[in-house]
């Protein structure tokens, strides 16, 4: 299982918050390693979130929800069967 965290976009404030602006993957979907899965925003700056591994994704944060950077926003489960 791989955690997907909100990117560390602020180096000055480790507790800075941002929002998941767009999910490009749906809950329970298969994702490929390197695939675009989300766009996040902090202080009007956008960043892309890329899947660190392949597997089934579970979304833990709703679109538009404000979270502290570093928060786990999704998990990817590697399933050996591929189903």
């Amino acid at each position, binding site marked *: 299982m791989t955690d997907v965290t909100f990117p560390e976009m602020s180096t000055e404030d480790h507790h800075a918050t941002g929002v998941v*602006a*767009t*999910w*490009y*993957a*749906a*809950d*329970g*979907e*298969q*994702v*490929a390693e390197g*695939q*675009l899965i989300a*766009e996040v*925003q902090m202080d*009007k700056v*956008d960043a892309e979130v890329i899947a660190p591994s*392949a597997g089934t994704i579970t*979304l833990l944060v*709703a*679109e538009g929800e404000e979270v502290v950077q570093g928060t786990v926003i999704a998990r990817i489960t590697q399933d050996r069967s*591929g*189903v």
Partner: protein
Amino acid sequence: MSTTAPTTGSTPVRRLNTSKAMAEAIAQEMRADPEVIYLGEDVGRYGGIFGSTTGLLDEFGPTRIIDTPISETAFIGLGIGAAVEGMRPIVELMFADFLGVCLDQIYNHMAKIHFESGGNVTVPMVLTTAVGGGYSDGAQHSQCLWGTFGHLPGMKVVVPSTPADAKGLMTAAIRDDGPVVYMFHKGVMGLAWMAKNQRSIGVVPEGEHVVPIGTAAVAHQGADVTVVTLGLSVHHALDVAEKLAGEGIGVEVIDLRSVVPLDRETIIASVARTGRLVVVDEDYLSYGLSGEVIASVVEADPGLLTVAPRRVAMPDIPIPYSHVLEYAALPRPEKIEAAIREVLR
């Protein structure tokens, strides 16, 4: 959640928003053809104010992704010259509203050189431009104006509404040997800072993807009424079609995708099945696309329509800045639904 239903199989699906799909098509064509360049205001370091060129400067550098001074006449003229000499420039007019300051280059030169040279000189150029309202940008930054471009002969005009079509039409536009005006509605780009809608995110083919210019798409099938539209209004029409399907009303939504050439065959074939026509156009009501669509049907066969057609379009007024007034003027879903119910009475 902004995405469509999960896939059940084990194959990952790759989604993009419309701006990323557009940039992907440009990048793929630039890799394949060194004559393709992109120029305009804030298209380089900024990445395009609506994300149309995000990431391209990093890959292709400032000799192919060119930030220009604020002189649309000068840099569109530069693009025309480059095209005449055999390059395939993509030139961005930041807002279609700005065509007033550079119209001579567009309609007297870009659009007419092929004709005036007796067909000996081609102008393989793409003019990209942002259109549309809905976010309080006022009367000089919210117009669609595809009717104006479509009225002037010599240019093809395309208006994608989905990420996949944005990629496919961009590829087709770059490869076209004549001038193509590529009008992207700001409301379909899927930008986080704009009012988003779920239809701005979609599955986009990763490899080469071409949507032929001049072909409309049946975005939703239905037997009772034909809604002909384009751009952001396609998204609204689909929302209405899905709602009315729950009441047993079949709404066929035609996404024109191209204004020039206009796919009259697809429009006429649909109206022949439904007998009822609603045209939804975010451009101005009078002397424009909505009238052209209706004329195309009536000229083909005045008996196709069983009831009078209806138009839902921008009234003939400068677009208000006030959010409330702007929404009152725009072809919002409530107006589309009311027009559909009217032709079904």
